[in-house]
C-alpha cells in the first residue's frame, strides 16, 4: 500500500512578541504513523500542535493537514481532528459518562455509533461511569480524555503531552492504547517530555528551543550516538559528578537514574584509570560499566552540539 502524507510542514516559524517559539520547522507525517515530538518544556511542542490543529496561524511557511491548508481551509480540517490539549482537564463537574456524551454530541455523533473504537479504552472506565471526572486519578482522566478525543472517529489524533503527570503503569497502558489505535489506521502525533517514551514511536522529532534537532526512527536516533558510553555509580552522586567533570578528557557527564552517563572527548575511556582516579578523589563504592546509549544520550549530545554551533 502506498503511504500518503497526512501532515506536511514547510519552513514554519512562529513568534510570540520577542519569543521565537518555532524556527524554520519542516517535517512530514505519514498516514498510519505514530509520530513522536520529543523535547523539554518550552521547546515549542504545544505551539507546533496548535499550528497543526489550525488554532494558530504560522508567521512564515505553510502547513497542510490531511490535504488541506491550515490557514484557508481550517473548516475542513477541524472535524477530522481528534485533539487532546496539554492543559485539557475535561469538565470536572460532569460524570465520566456525561463528558463522553457531551463530546460525542458536540462533534455531531453518538457514543453508541463509535463505541467499538473506544471500547478497549473506555471499558476500564465503565465501572466509574457515574463518578465525577474531577474525582478520577490522573491516569483515568487521561484515558477518559483520549476516549473523548476519539469519539468522532478522527483521521488524525493530536495528543499534547498526554502522559505528563501520570504514573508509570498508566503511562504504559496509555501507550499500549496508542499502538492499538495505530492498528485501526489512525495517524497519531504525540508529544512528550519523557525520553523513554520515544522508543514506542515509529519516528520521532527531537525538538529544542524551537528548532528540530533530528527526525528519525528511535533506533536510528540512538545509533547516531557513536561514542562509547560508561555508566558510573558511587555512594555520593554529587561528589561523583564533580569528580567526573574535573577528570582530564571528560566530555559529557549526565546523571540518568541510577548511573551517571559519561563519555570522553577522544575515543575510548579506560574504566580502570577512571576507577583509580575516582577512588583517589575519595569516592566509595565506585562501580563502572559499559552502557548501551539510550535516546536521551543522543538528545543531550545533539543539544550540546546545537548550543556549540
Amino acid at each position, binding site marked *: 500500500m502506498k503511504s500518503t502524507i497526512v501532515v506536511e510542514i514547510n519552513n514554519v516559524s512562529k513568534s510570540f512578541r520577542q519569543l521565537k517559539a518555532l524556527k524554520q520547522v519542516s517535517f512530514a507525517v505519514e498516514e498510519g504513523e505514530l509520530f513522536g515530538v520529543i523535547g523539554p518544556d518550552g521547546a515549542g511542542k504545544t505551539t507546533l500542535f*496548535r499550528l497543526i*490543529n*489550525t*488554532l*494558530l*496561524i504560522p508567521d512564515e511557511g505553510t502547513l497542510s493537514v490531511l490535504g488541506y491548508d491550515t490557514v484557508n481551509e*481550517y473548516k475542513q480540517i*477541524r*472535524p477530522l*481532528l481528534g*485533539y487532546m*490539549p*496539554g*492543559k*485539557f*482537564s*475535561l*469538565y470536572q*463537574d*460532569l460524570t465520566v459518562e*456525561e463528558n463522553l*456524551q*457531551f*463530546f*460525542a*454530541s*458536540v*462533534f*455531531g455523533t*453518538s457514543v453508541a455509533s463509535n463505541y467499538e473504537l473506544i471500547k478497549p479504552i473506555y471499558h476500564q472506565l465503565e465501572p466509574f461511569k457515574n463518578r465525577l471526572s474531577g474525582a478520577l486519578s490522573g491516569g483515568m482522566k487521561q484515558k477518559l480524555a483520549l476516549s473523548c478525543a476519539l469519539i468522532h472517529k478522527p483521521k488524525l489524533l493530536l495528543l499534547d503531552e498526554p502522559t505528563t503527570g501520570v504514573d508509570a503503569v498508566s503511562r504504559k497502558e496509555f501507550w499500549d492504547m496508542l499502538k492499538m489505535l495505530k492498528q485501526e489506521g489512525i495517524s497519531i502525533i504525540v508529544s512528550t517530555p519523557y525520553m523513554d517514551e520515544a522508543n514506542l514511536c515509529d519516528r520521532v522529532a527531537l525538538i529544542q528551543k524551537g528548532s528540530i534537532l533530528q527526525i528519525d526512527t528511535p533506533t536510528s536516533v540512538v545509533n547516531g550516538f557513536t561514542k562509547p558510553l560508561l555508566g558510573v555509580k558511587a555512594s555520593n552522586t554529587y561528589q561523583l559528578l564533580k569528580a567526573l567533570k574535573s577528570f582530564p578528557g571528560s566530555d559529557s557527564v549526565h546523571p540518568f537514574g541510577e548511573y551517571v552517563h559519561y563519555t570522553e572527548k577522544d575515543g575510548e575511556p579506560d574504566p580502570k584509570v577512571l576507577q583509580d582516579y575516582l577512588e583517589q578523589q575519595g569516592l566509595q563504592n565506585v562501580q563502572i560499566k559499559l552502557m548501551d546509549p539510550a535516546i536521551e544520550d543522543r538528545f543531550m549530545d545533539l543539544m550540546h552540539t546545537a548550543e556549540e554551533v
Partner: protein
Amino acid sequence: MNSFAGFVIKEFKQIYRDKRTLTVLFGMPVIMMILFGFAIRNEISNAEIGILDRSKDEVTHQIIQKLEATDAFQVRAYLQDVNEIEALFREGDIKEVVVFEANFRQKLVREQRADIQIITDATNPNLANLVQSYTANIIQDYVKALNSEDQIEQAGIMPKVRMMYNPELRSVNLFVPGLIAVILMLVSTLMTSISITREKEMGNMEILLVSPLKPYHIIIGKVLPYLVLSVVNVITILILAIFVFQVPFEGSYLLFFAEAGLFTLTALALGVFISSVASDQQTAMMISLAGLLLPTVLLSGFIFPVQSMPEVLQWISHIIPAKWFLIIVRGIMLKGSELLMVWKETLILIGMTVFFIALSLKKFKVRLQ
C-alpha cells in the same frame, strides 16, 4: 443529538451541579432585598433639629408640635438668636434648624404670607435634602389643614416643595429598581464572563473551537442558562417588593418584563464582551466587579442621585446601562409610565445591547490568536 443542544444541556448541568454558586445566585436577591428594605434606609428617623422661633405665637407653636409629633424629628434645641445657629451646627448632631420670622401669625393673617427659613447641614447632601423636603411636607400638610379649618384664604407658608410618587420618601421604593439592576449585572454579566473564561482557563475552549460548534453556538449556549436564572431573580425581587415591602406597582407588568428582559440582554452582552477580552476567570471577575458593578451601584442613581454628582460623573453615568434602566423601571413602577414615556431610554438600551453583541461576535476568535 445536535451539537448545540448538547452544549446547552451541558451548561445547565454544570450550573445545576454547582450548588454553592446556585444558592448564592438565588439567595442573593432575597438577602439584598431584606438588607436594603430593612437595614439600609434613607428615611429619616429621629433627626435632631433646632428651632429658632422669633414669633412664638399660636401658629408657630402648632407647626413645632407637628414637627415634634413625627418620628422623623426630635427637637433638641430652642435658639434665641441667629448667631447661635452656626455654633449649633458645628457641634455636629443637629441636621436642621427651622427659623420662623417675627410676627409670623400676624403676617400670615394680614399679608397672607409668612416665611420659614430651613437651614440644613449639607455635609451629607442626601440627608440634608431629605430632611428639608420632609420638613416642607409637614408644614404643607399643616397649611392645608389650616386652610380648611380656619378658612384663612390661601395662607401661604411655603417652601414650594411637593414630593410626588413617593410621598413618604420610602427608600425601598427607590431601591427595588436599582436592586434589580445590580442583581441582573451580577448574575448575567459576572456569571457569564466567568463561565466563558473558565473554559479558556481549563483548556476546554481549544476543543470547543476545534469542534463543529460555531462561535455563536458557544455564546448563546453560555448565555441561555443565565437568562433563565435572571428571569427567576427578577420575579423573586418583584414578589418580595410588592408583598413584603408594599412597593407600589403602577405600570404594566408586560412592559416591565419586556424592559427587564432587554436589560438582561444588555448585561449578558457585556458579560460576553468581557470574556472576549479577559483570558482568565480572575481578570473577568475583576473587570465585572470593578468596571461594571461598582459604577452600577455608585453612578447609576441607585444610591446617589445623578443630579447631585459633579458634571464629569454625570457624563460618565450616561454610558452606564443601569442608569437608563433605573429611569425606565422607576417610571413604570412608581409613575405608571407607558412605553411612550420611556422610549428614549429603551432605545438607548437597545443600542448598547446591539453594540456589545456585535463587538463580542467580532472579537470572538475562531483561533487562539
